[in-house]
């Protein structure tokens, strides 16, 4: 049974078509990578699944229930945990309080929410910064906190929006390990990522978006061999901008 499935998903902002007739179905326990150049519509598709944006047209089901255009808090209660690409959260609270707030979704009492939050904090290695205000964290820790908040809601589907970009190689390796651990626990994950290498190592299936439409879909190896994907990422080679050569030459010194 597919956990989440969208069909004909389209989002228009005025004249701009951000997402165009996308079909996507994710099975329980899968890790699916969503890649594509800037402006390809990855984040818009994400926010429609999470309920932040209403699709212009198209349908979506979650656990075979029609949920098109649901509200974000309903999505969260139904089992969709999501991170934000630009780090959000509650800056006046400590890391522990941030995670505890999220844990309250499944735990009514303070004590039980606190226990659940602490185990998420341990799992993600945030113990050292647990009592610091969220606003004072480094970029890497903030990304971890994004994941921690999402996990504390005890989701069935986890939407990770660029949680690996901007990290150092060591931090990135740690995060990849964390995500593997989550998958072993049976969590279904859809992740948006710019960096192809990361997706290659983690995902069984990759979906490439370009100009809002699905360009390619398959295993990582299939997708990177797809000529359409290569063209979308690298361009056709003929469209060299006239200014690029002399300027790059000067910058090299």
């Amino acid at each position, binding site marked *: 049974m597919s956990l989440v499935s969208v069909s004909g998903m389209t989002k228009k902002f005025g004249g701009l078509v951000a997402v165009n007739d996308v079909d996507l179905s994710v099975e329980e326990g899968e890790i699916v990578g969503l890649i594509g150049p800037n402006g390809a519509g990855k984040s818009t598709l994400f926010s429609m699944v999470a309920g932040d944006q209403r699709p212009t047209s198209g349908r979506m089901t979650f656990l075979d229930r029609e949920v098109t255009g649901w509200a*974000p808090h309903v999505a969260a209660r139904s089992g969709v945990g999501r991170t934000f690409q630009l780090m*959000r959260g509650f800056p*006046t609270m*400590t890391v522990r309080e941030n995670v505890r*707030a999220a844990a309250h*979704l499944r735990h009514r009492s303070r004590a039980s929410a606190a226990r659940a939050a602490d185990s998420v904090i341990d799992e993600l290695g945030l113990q*050292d*910064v647990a009592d610091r205000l969220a606003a004072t964290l480094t970029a890497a820790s903030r990304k971890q906190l994004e994941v921690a908040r999402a996990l504390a809601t005890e989701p069935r589907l986890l939407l990770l929006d660029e949680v690996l970009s901007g990290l150092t190689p060591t931090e990135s390796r740690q995060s990849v390990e964390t995500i593997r651990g989550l998958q072993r626990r049976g969590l279904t994950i859809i992740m948006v990522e710019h960096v192809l290498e990361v997706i290659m190592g983690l995902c069984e299936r990759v979906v490439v978006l370009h100009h809002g439409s699905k360009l390619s879909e398959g295993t990582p190896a299939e997708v990177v061999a797809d000529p359409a994907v290569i063209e979308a990422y690298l361009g056709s080679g003929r469209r060299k901008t006239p200014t690029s050569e002399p300027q790059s030459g000067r910058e090299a010194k």
Partner: protein
Amino acid sequence: MTATLTPAPESVTQAVRSGPPWRTVAGLALTLILLIAYPFALPTVFAANIGILALTFATAAVGWNLLGGYTGQVSFGQALFFGIGAYTTALGVRAGWSPWLTFVVGSVLAAGVAVLVMWPTSRLRNHYFSIATIAVTQIVMILVTNIEWLGRASGLELPIPDHNGLATLSFNPRDKTPYYFVALGMFVVAWVAGAWLLRGRLGVYAMAVRDDQEAAAAIGVSVRQVKLVMAALSGSIAAVPGGFFAMYVSLVDPPSVLGLNLSIQIALIAVLGGVGTLAGPLLGAWTLIFLQEYTRSELSSTGRSLDLLIYGALIVLVTLVEPGGIVGLAQRIGRRLFGAARRPRPGKGKP
């Protein structure tokens, strides 16, 4: 104004930090002892009057703080709830009801009105919400000013009861001490109720909504529901001091219980004391009411506008010097005196 109302991060979440350590308990006990000792230490009518008004408006500010300080919906319409409480008590007591009953009725009415007002305005953010609350309150004030059975502009006088006592909330006018202790009881109950609410899930959710509505929704918080509940609680708490005020001054009229001045005063008390802190309303109320009454008695020849001058000066001062209010200032001084021993400063947390 928005800068003023951004809480100082360190001060805010203390309300939800776990378990009351001995320091908190000692602080609360000391505060309560000081409040009980006050009328005996300063046994003048003038001092008692300051205390009564301070506790009355501190209670209203406790209500304001739930919505403005903890949920981030900065209201300049708290007078609406205060006024509902005041008019309910005036009407009820004139009809022969017990004043205590009118407090309960006023509180429930105010909660209902809060939900009605919040329903359409809950989508508004920041100053848009603040402006809407001003508009609604002004409309209600104009309505009341034109309604016959609410006494129009001259308001409603409260009857003098046959006998004095706690049941009728009427005491010998020469001794204000009983009024003071009723006000103190009211404040303590409101404060404890507020603190208790904020410790639980609702308080955590309110602060999540204040900090980031999208992130709050993403962890399953119904932003609208939290705002509605907090508005109802805020209104119901603020109505009680309105009813008490009506009993105390024996007269309600539109400008004194529904005016914009009153709304600003209640918000300013919470801001001056420290937005989103539990100690804020008490500290702010005592400071502001003392300044107000003192200048009124010492410089009475200059007329009423002097208190507006004080408001203005205080807003500028809090914005420029210490957005965390008196609580923020005290914490800053505490840190300077005792170093970083109590709470590691941001950025030094990692070994």
